[in-house]
């Protein structure tokens, strides 16, 4: 088993919270992990990404080779396109549709969405809207993880356990909210794939 995932977003959007839950799930599944993060200057509102590699075999490189990622998981639509050179011929792109506009020349969102819709395999999801329905827009990253979960070769129950572990110290209510966000994201992806 091997899942090579590019996580993408803007500094401050918290893509590493997704990586943390996935890492926890993979460890519980006795899988091996390498995960390269972006720290430093770009965290100040710049483009950030993480290479997450999960496998049952030893992983050599910390970075995913170009053209071989199984999944691009983006919490921002334009950022989902920035790493397309990593996507494999059979890979999926799963992205949030809400733009994060912190630059004066952010492109017309329709032209961004047009490019996303050109891809053979993609899921575009309004994670904020679903997160709000569930109870808090802060759970949008877990909606995104749920939407990506059908394309990651890890038992769904392990990802749920990952959420329980990571959010445990914030109380049962937060755990349940994030679990619901995860499930709603997954349901959306399965209906729209």
């Amino acid at each position: 088993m091997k899942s090579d995932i590019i996580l993408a977003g803007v500094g401050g959007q918290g893509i590493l919270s997704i990586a943390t839950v996935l890492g926890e799930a993979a460890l519980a599944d006795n899988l091996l992990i390498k995960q390269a993060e972006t720290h430093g200057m770009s965290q100040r509102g710049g483009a950030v990404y993480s290479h997450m590699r999960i496998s049952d075999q030893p992983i050599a490189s910390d970075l995913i080779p170009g053209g071989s990622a199984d999944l691009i998981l983006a919490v921002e639509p334009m950022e989902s396109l920035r790493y397309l050179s990593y996507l494999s011929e059979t890979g999926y792109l799963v992205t949030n549709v809400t733009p994060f506009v912190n630059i004066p020349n952010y492109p017309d969102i329709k032209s961004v969405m047009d490019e996303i819709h050109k891809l053979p395999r993609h899921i575009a999801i309004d994670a904020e809207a679903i997160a709000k329905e569930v109870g808090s827009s802060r759970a949008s990253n877990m909606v995104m993880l749920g939407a990506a979960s059908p394309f990651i070769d890890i038992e769904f129950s392990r990802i749920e356990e990952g959420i329980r572990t990571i959010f445990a110290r914030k109380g049962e209510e937060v755990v349940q909210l994030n679990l619901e966000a995860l499930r709603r994201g997954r349901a959306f992806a399965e209906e729209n794939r």
Partner: protein
Amino acid sequence: MQKHLFLGVEAIGQGAIDGGMSGVYAYPGTPSTEITEFIQENPLAKERNIHHAWSSNEKTAMETALGMSYAGKRAMACMKHVGLNVAADVFLNAAMTGINGGLLVAVADDPSMHSSQNEQDSRFYGKFAMVPVLEPSSQQEAYDMVHDGFALSELTKVPVMLRITTRLAHSRSGVDRGEVLPENPLVMPSDPRQFILLPAIARRKYKVLLSNQALFLKLSEESIYNRYEEGTDKSLGIVACGIAYNYLMEHFPVGSCPYPVVKVSQYPIPEKYIKRLDRECDELLILEEGAPMVEEMLKGFFANGTPVKGRLDGTLPRDGELNPDLVAKALGKELFAGFDIPEVVTNRPPALCQGCGHQDAYLAMNEALADYSKGRVFSDIGCYTLGALPPYETIYSCVDMGASITMAKGAADAGLIPSVAMIGDSTFAHSGITGLLDAVNEKSSITVVISDNESVSMTGGQDSSAFGKIESICIGLGVDPAHIHAIVPLRKNHDEMVRLFRQEFAYEGVSVIIPRRECIQRAARRKRNK
């Protein structure tokens, strides 16, 4: 199951704690910062009372670590690559004095300059100082090298450098911990003159360092981190240093590499393996992160031996970090190139946070500078360096820590009056103070803006060693108190700030303006943690 999912920097922190370290000394700098932060938060480190407070700069950090080593205990100094420039004096001379307790110098290089002003390769410093250098290829090796590195330092009696790069620093992987070793007791150096580098003693010490090179080489050739891996296709022999080994193995899953490979993770380079590779193979390919150091060594001046391929002949790019794709290309492998990135994707550079005090300072400064010709503001290293970008475009330099004040003084000496320095509180403490003393001594017509956000912000909000002391430092250096002004950089104070800037730009002498408001990221973290 692997027990710890550690970043490379965290593996180093844990390795040092478990290896019996009594103190870490560091100044924050990406990608090295989290080594010290990990130790600061670690329960065992707290229980052992391992020293972990930030130092004012990398030089004070390494000197203090050397002092701890003098007293027999194990110590580590951590910094980013350019920090080693600041600490180069003590680093090179600590190789001369040698150590008492084990001393590790962990340096994190930043090839491709993700968060740095250059991509210098610290291995050259290791070679320059003639000390062993360790360069892990994985987080597990990083842990093991630090855990056992103190003993290596004690065996070789010199500081040992651990060199990592951004990818290893900020990548996570499973790490198994080793035995938790006791700390060293307080033991004085057996030779009371060991640390006195008077010329007569230093000449003797230098001969010792030179004669120990044979030992360092022998240890490299016997190191568990270096090895010769057999291969059947002798048309090419590969030398893979540090993390580059992983990029090579990415293309040859366990044991399938047809070419002989020398894995190098400890320096000096293991000569016997390299010589064997040279004997057996038609061509050599050198994979190394950073500068072509090993490649230059093997190629030689006349390049008339075995052909050597790498960064110098264009097989790999001369600059920037390596990755699996570049290594694949060097091996002649074709990979699927992925999908094209559409033109609609726009650059998203980092920017000052909304609500940051530096923004208010720059807006006021720009207004007050409108009466003068352009090019008068010299800046420094920190978040405020982003003031080079629109919409501010206020600053004209960013060179090294503290250079804002001294470059402003030099420009004023040349006749550019007024000249302005823009420096943060922590950078001022790091390397700005001595430059300000020079300006005071010569009554230079400069205005020094110390934009004080009460933290080291670009690296994540660490404590600034100048906290609460900036005015008293300036007064102590001899700045006229009538020309030291603090103001809160908020929109409501904009007019007052502009007036202050105008007034002090017109003053012929040294003035200091301190816009002071806590970093909004730090303030937010403080509220969250309450």
